[in-house]
């Protein structure tokens, strides 16, 4: 009987011959991701760190991104505390405010590699399945414990196999695919499960796969993962990653369930308030007025995402009734887009370019909504109050849909090219 990705990788990471769904195993993660919450995490165990030290100084990856540049004295003090901690313990894997959103940094700097196990004190840690890592979110307390011990327990999950067949249509992207899937299976449709993607995957770049894996948690998934193929290999070569051991499911692996989607039949999709699984074709909410648009974030803030937006906005102006915020996922993405003219096009169209952080996405700062306002965003969550105001509404869509809608000031299908 064949094994799934999750069964194989967790057995290997636990030093066991086999692991079966439901089994509890002790594992040593290859990396532990923390962001601004590192301040609270180290605060919980300051005495223990003095006494026992950090178990492995290469284990933690710390990225300041959630409230950057600091919004107030409290967040500034948190950042200061983290910088002092990093210096004191001589931690190498530290990325200060402005480097990028933590998940993009873990990808870009080569911490996430095929066959690696990464745990992070952030729910979107599941993103690294894009490059065949097993990665999942944990809370601050568990991150604190892992800093001391290097270990934790995981329950081996059941797996769901998702086959993506056919070719995407013009102006339809990975975001529309994952929104369709979440709309179909629901926000608890993959609870506790490992989601494996199979099928016609060549058309999805690593960036696209990241968009899909990033939103796995919005269906409750423990992790969401792609196989290593020439697309992955080429990406890893480009960022200078050489050593890795891919893991993939056997063809006769046993799944909890299996689904097939014909991606050629997927139109531009949109998640309507206030749940990510409230998904409809964009055409069904056509004309809904919007006051803010956000293109970017860890979900859709890479070069291709911003280039698609620029292609649509070139020579046009954002509606006077809309603020368009651009949030590149990292400084590297920003610089690449600066060099190739993307940023200039977006700026000329009237966009506000934000630093690479998480601020507006979680309502921390930089783009908080007012009561009665509506935001169309490429981010991953539209929960009530998510952008800082519970009397506002958030819709989620692809960069193409958001860019076209920003011009019109209302939700618009990106396949309608005429203004």
């Amino acid at each position, binding site marked *: 009987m064949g094994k799934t990705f999750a069964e194989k990788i967790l057995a290997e990471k636990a030093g*066991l011959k086999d692991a079966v769904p439901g089994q509890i195993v002790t594992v040593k993660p290859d990396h532990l991701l923390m962001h601004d919450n590192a301040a609270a995490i180290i605060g919980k165990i300051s005495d223990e760190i003095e006494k026992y030290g950090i178990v492995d100084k290469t284990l933690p990856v710390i990225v300041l991104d959630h409230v950057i540049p600091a919004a107030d004295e409290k967040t500034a003090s948190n950042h200061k505390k983290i910088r002092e901690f990093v210096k004191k313990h001589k931690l190498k894997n530290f990325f200060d405010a402005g480097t990028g959103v933590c998940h993009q940094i873990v990808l870009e700097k080569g911490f996430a590699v095929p066959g690696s196990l990464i745990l992070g004190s952030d729910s979107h840690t599941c993103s690294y399945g894009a490059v065949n890592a097993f990665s999942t979110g944990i*809370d601050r*307390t568990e991150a604190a414990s892992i800093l001391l*011990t290097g270990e934790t327990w995981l329950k081996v999950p059941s797996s769901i196999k998702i086959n993506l067949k056919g070719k995407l249509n013009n102006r339809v992207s990975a975001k529309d695919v994952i929104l369709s899937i979440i709309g179909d299976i629901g926000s608890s449709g993959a609870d506790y499960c490992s989601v494996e993607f199979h099928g016609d995957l060549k058309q999805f770049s690593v960036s696209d796969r990241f968009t899909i894996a990033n939103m796995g948690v919005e269906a409750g998934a423990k992790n969401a993962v792609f196989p290593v193929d020439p697309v992955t290999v080429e990406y890893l070569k480009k960022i200078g990653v050489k050593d890795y051991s891919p893991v993939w499911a056997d063809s006769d692996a046993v799944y909890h369930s299996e689904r097939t989607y014909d991606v050629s039949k997927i139109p531009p999709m949109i998640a309507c308030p206030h749940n990510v699984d409230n998904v409809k074709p964009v055409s069904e909410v056509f004309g809904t007025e919007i006051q803010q648009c956000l293109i970017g974030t860890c979900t859709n803030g890479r070069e291709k995402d911003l280039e698609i937006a620029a292609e649509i906005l070139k020579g046009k102006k954002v509606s006077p009734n809309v603020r368009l915020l651009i949030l590149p996922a990292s400084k590297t993405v920003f610089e690449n887009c600066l060099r190739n003219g993307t940023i200039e096009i977006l700026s000329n169209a009237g966009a506000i370019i934000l630093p690479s952080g998480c601020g507006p996405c979680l309502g921390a700062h930089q783009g908080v909504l007012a009561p009665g306002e509506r935001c169309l965003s490429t981010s991953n969550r539209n929960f009530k*109050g998510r952008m800082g105001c519970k009397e506002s509404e958030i819709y989620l869509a692809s960069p193409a849909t958001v860019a076209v809608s920003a011009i019109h000031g209302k939700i618009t299908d990106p396949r309608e090219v005429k203004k």
Partner: protein
Amino acid sequence: MRIWKYGDNINTDQLFPGKYTYTCATPEEIKPHLLEDLDPSFAGNVKKDDIIIAGKNFGCGSSREQPVLGLKSVGVQAVIAESFARIFYRSAINQGLVLIECQDAVKAYSEGDKIELNIEKGNITVGEKNFSFPTLPKEILAIRDADGLLAYTRLKLKKNGKRFNYVSGYQNKTDE
């Protein structure tokens, strides 16, 4: 003892708004905002031993631990739901908060029913009806019952130093 009843897909932004995530960390800071965007009457009226009963996928969304830490620190006896999101479930073990996954008990509950819990035996009485729910594996219960993961980790470190092992697996490598 009061019972607070909520619906499906109660997410972490409703339980504790994201805008406070980086400014509130202690129980005292968390309490006034607990369930703020779900039920503004909760924070001011919740008492020790109260129970929360909810539908499917309770706690979905962020990995922020303030909802769990907050519910534990105000003395909520248990959250009973049809199902829980995994990070929330795991976080509850880490904070020593009791979560009970029991669809039948949630379905059987109607306003005014009394609820009695026997957590060790995995038993729950709703009004006149009795239900059982699966208990956690003993290794995991040990973490919850040590009053949470950090207390558990401290005990283990004190006893074993850096040679550490939770449960099955990894025997060979920890013996290096």
